[in-house]
């Protein structure tokens, strides 16, 4: 009887109070909040030009991206890596805005996705910072040899048609580099996750 009364009163109490934010995941000493996960879904959808589907699968993916972002953020702070400049961010923001016919259309799109220009700017600045981090930390470790390029060319002949190797060499080198940098980044992230303390308070995101 008493237990039921407690549950009801908690329910009644909860009916008046509304949660406006809460912790979903903790990475080290840094929380990832429900509001941040939602925003991540919306901003990503906005940039990809797709509808913002807020369901458990999307939340899980967004949460995973935010964990990776936090681990990278910690590394950037520890290693004193350079942040994106305001000018670069403005340029990128301008490029996104130019997709819309006019500023009003851009503003309306932001409103439709439930995000602000500040949210978008922060995301773009972060993207540039991460690219810079990857370039500084992983690109120097990648060495693409002539043999690698030749091997790629021969195994993707259909892609290049009649183009000779010399003509596509720079593009192939860039592709291989990109793949290897990606691999290094993934390996690093895997390792960072293993050594970090990640606590899922919202078990549905684990």
């Amino acid at each position: 009887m008493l237990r039921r009364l407690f549950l009801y009163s908690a329910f009644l109490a909860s009916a008046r109070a509304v949660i406006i934010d809460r912790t979903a995941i903790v990475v080290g000493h840094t929380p990832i909040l429900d509001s941040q996960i939602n925003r991540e879904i919306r901003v990503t959808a906005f940039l990809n030009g797709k509808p913002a589907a807020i369901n458990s699968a999307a939340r899980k993916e967004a949460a995973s991206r935010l964990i990776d972002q936090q681990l990278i953020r910690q590394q950037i702070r520890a290693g004193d890596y350079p942040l994106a400049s305001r000018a670069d961010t403005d340029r990128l923001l301008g490029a996104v805005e130019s997709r819309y016919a006019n500023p009003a259309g851009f503003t309306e799109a932001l409103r439709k996705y439930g995000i602000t220009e500040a949210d978008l700017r922060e995301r773009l600045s972060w993207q540039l910072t991460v690219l810079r981090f990857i370039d500084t930390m992983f690109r120097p470790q990648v060495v693409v040899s002539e043999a690698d390029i030749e091997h790629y060319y021969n195994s993707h002949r259909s892609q290049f048609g009649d183009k000779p190797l010399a003509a596509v060499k720079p593009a192939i080198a860039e592709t291989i580099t990109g793949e290897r940098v990606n691999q290094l980044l993934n390996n690093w992230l895997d390792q960072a996750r293993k050594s970090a303390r990640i606590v899922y308070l919202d078990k549905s995101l684990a």
Partner: protein
Amino acid sequence: MPANRRAAPRWSLIVYAATWSAALPHALLRAQSSFEGKTIVSIRYEPSRQPLAEADLKRVAVLAPGAPLRIADVEEAITRLFATGRYADIQVDAESRASGVAIVFRTEAARFFGHVQASGQISNPPSAAVIVNTAELPLGAPFDPDLLAAAKRNIERLFAANGLYDAQIRLETADEPDQQVSVRIVVDSGPRARYSMPTIRGEPKLSDATIVRATGWRIRFIGRWRKVTQALTSEGIEGISKKYQKEDRLTATATLTALDYDPETVRVKPSLDLHAGPKVYIRLPQARVSKSRLKRFVPVYQEGAVDPDLLVEGERNLRDYFQSRGYPDVNVTFRQLPASGDQETIEYFITRGPRRKLVRVFIRGNHYFDDATIRERMYLEPASLFDRWGRYSDSFRKRDEQSIADLYKSNGFRDVLVTSRVETRYGGSDSRIAVVFSIEEGVQWRISRFSATGLEGIGAGPLVRLLGAGPGQPYSETTIAEDRSVILQALASRGFRHATFQFRTSPSGPHEVALTYRIDPGPQEFVRDVVISGLRTTKPELVQKQITIRPGDPLSLPADREIQRSLYNLGIFAEINTAVQNSEGDETYKYVLFDFTEAHRYTLNLGVGAEIAQLGPTTTAISEPVGATGFSPRLSASINRLNVGGAGHTLALQTLLSTLEQRIGVSFIVPRLFDNPSRSATYSFLWDTSRDIRTFSSHREEGSVQLAQRFTRRTVGLFRFAYRRVSISDLVIPALLIPQFLQPARIGIVSANLVQDHRDNSVDPHAGIYNTADIGVASTALGSQRNFTKFLLRNATYTPIGKHMVFARQTVFGGIVPFNTPPGTPPGVAVPLPERFFGGGDISLRAFPENQAGPRDTGSPAAPGGTQTEPTGFPLGGDAVLINNLELRFPLIGQNIGGVLFHDMGNIYESLSSISFRYRQRDPEDFDYMVHAVGFGIRYRTPVGPLRVDLAYGLNPPRFYGFSGTIQQLLACNPNLAPSQLPAQCQPRLQGIGHFQYFFSIGQTF
């Protein structure tokens, strides 16, 4: 139970869950939008008592009543609270109010590891302490259930390595106040497995029996397999490696690949992978070097590989060795012969060249430093009394160049250049060389301008005065590094644990720099409170008195370590850990943790030893007053009970049993008397019988109280009151057979002793001074049956001579002065025999065997009524002592074997007025003269002090009359007859202390 009653709770849970699931993203967004911009009317925390200190809660607060609610601010608020490290979960609720919105922070506090202990059925090894260390649950670190799982895995691995495969391990946690979690590791070790015959693979080239013998896993002669422990397993592998080394198989490898456990038989089967490799012979066809030296010089032995780099290093080491032996032109090469069958040979060819003495080491071009300062840092040394050829090698010459250059660079001479050359045929002789070091100092760089920013406002301005850098000072990186250390340590002791230091230089003139230190102190941290854990029997007040930090003090790790040291000095804790809880969290006020592991309360020490000395005769045969060499075994045992009553007191029982002495002693020690760490009290009771003086056996029953006060680090005072009953028996001197001598005497004596120790090392001093002064008064006012004053002064000095020699000197002066002697008491018995001074032996006067110095029995009765007999020559002790010892201590062979030349002089005298410096003994009944001895000793340095052998030659030892026969025969002789009338047996026999004395012992003489 009715169905509806069973259904109701399920329904409410579903509704409750549904309500919470409404806080899905859409609802969250709607809620955020609806409250955005509304005025915050109140902010509440649930629970109301938050894990953060009030000041920190205010510091990190973002939202404020009266301000509009911004959802971005809510994110920031949660992030900042989390950054403090004090929270495991935070949720923010909003409640609508008429005038705005009420905010509620619902929080769950984080927890941190506290005391960890191991208990249960623990079979050692591993010990409880090792189990706790293996768990790796750091004190004060955030509690993480994953760490508990990892701890259990680590402990299971530890147990398996120690043969405890069936151990049951359970980790229990309990919440403690202040967010601590204590962990109890409950263990049931189970049976320990035994080794079984290992499986051997590879190419061992040794028989299985030999391999098993080398491991030590099977008990010899019995054949039973030992129980498995981690230490035995690794010693076993090492034993195999050593076996291979002995057989010159230097590249052999021995690897343990598996330990397979059979639960049926409780046996472990090790799998070994052995590869013997070839026999490697290292030959020196042209020179002789001992095997032990060769092993040190050619790293092939240690590294277990025949590698060109290692052989080259061996070549270099051998060259250095021969050069240091006086062969500066030595040439060393090696040749690796092709492997032949099971054998590989390496030959080192050593062409020594002529032997040359390093006679001089010149230093030229130095102005800033004098020669003595430079030579202190040099390895090269010219030939001397202790090193016939001097100390020289090419590599050490280069090293000395570098040492000198470093000395100059650390004093601002950045451009210094140091070179050296060897001058052969020095002084026109082929066998003499000299080395000349040439120093081009260059110009000394100085600091023209200096500033240190960042210390203002935190009260650390005076710190600048402690720095090495300053205007006009020499500029060097060494100074900057030292200043960095000084600054960061000073800031750490003031609560600035995260301070950073940077420096910048800019040229400001020829050979001048402007130097700036940029210090960022970071946030200052303070003590929130002190949390103590782990105490079981110790009274908390005992510990709290030692913890001098208080809430609000700056957080200082050096202060914590000092407190830790003073707690260890209580002698009742096996381990004391100190940590800052939530060390990495962003909070200003932090808990300081002290976690204790109490020591075993009972300790038992057993000792076995022996004494080889000139021991006395039996009381029936009294022909050898000096004694003959004998052997006396001894056993000792002591039991200590620590931490009596949880107050840090100690109760000790000590016993000693030997043919010369039997003793039982009980002591109660009270450290930190009246909470003063410099003061302690000891209450003792002693029962002792000893016969280390040949003349008699002494018995002593004594109770005493002693107060020790440390005035300074080097000066200690001891104040003592003792009440004892002394008596003698087995007296070999009939002349002393008078009632007053034989009756027990009660002595109540109060004494004070001052010790001043300024030596650099108390076990083997090389410099300093040591003084002691002891004065005691026995008086009838203290219940004593005798009145006398006794004092003993000692002064020792140690003076280094050059780098290697020490001149040591000690003077001892003491006296006993009876007073208020009752009428009729003969002076000879005013001071009981056992209270007199006795001297002679390895630590006082080496002209004599133990306790043989001073006055001797001449046959005269000690008092009226005593028996007149023929003299026996036994020592009687005296009421005064004056001894002086001189020693010249010097190295003899290498670092560990030293030599000593000594001169002892002095004696025990009848009384203070009898002290004399006279060299000659007037007659065989005169003992008040100064005896001299010279001698030589060897000292072998060990971790417990030098082993000592001394051979002394007495220049003027005493002669005395003795008796050959038994006491009965002595008593039968009529002393009133003229010597010519006495039977032959009764004729006094002229004896003497032998000129040569030898001593074996541990520790320096003084």
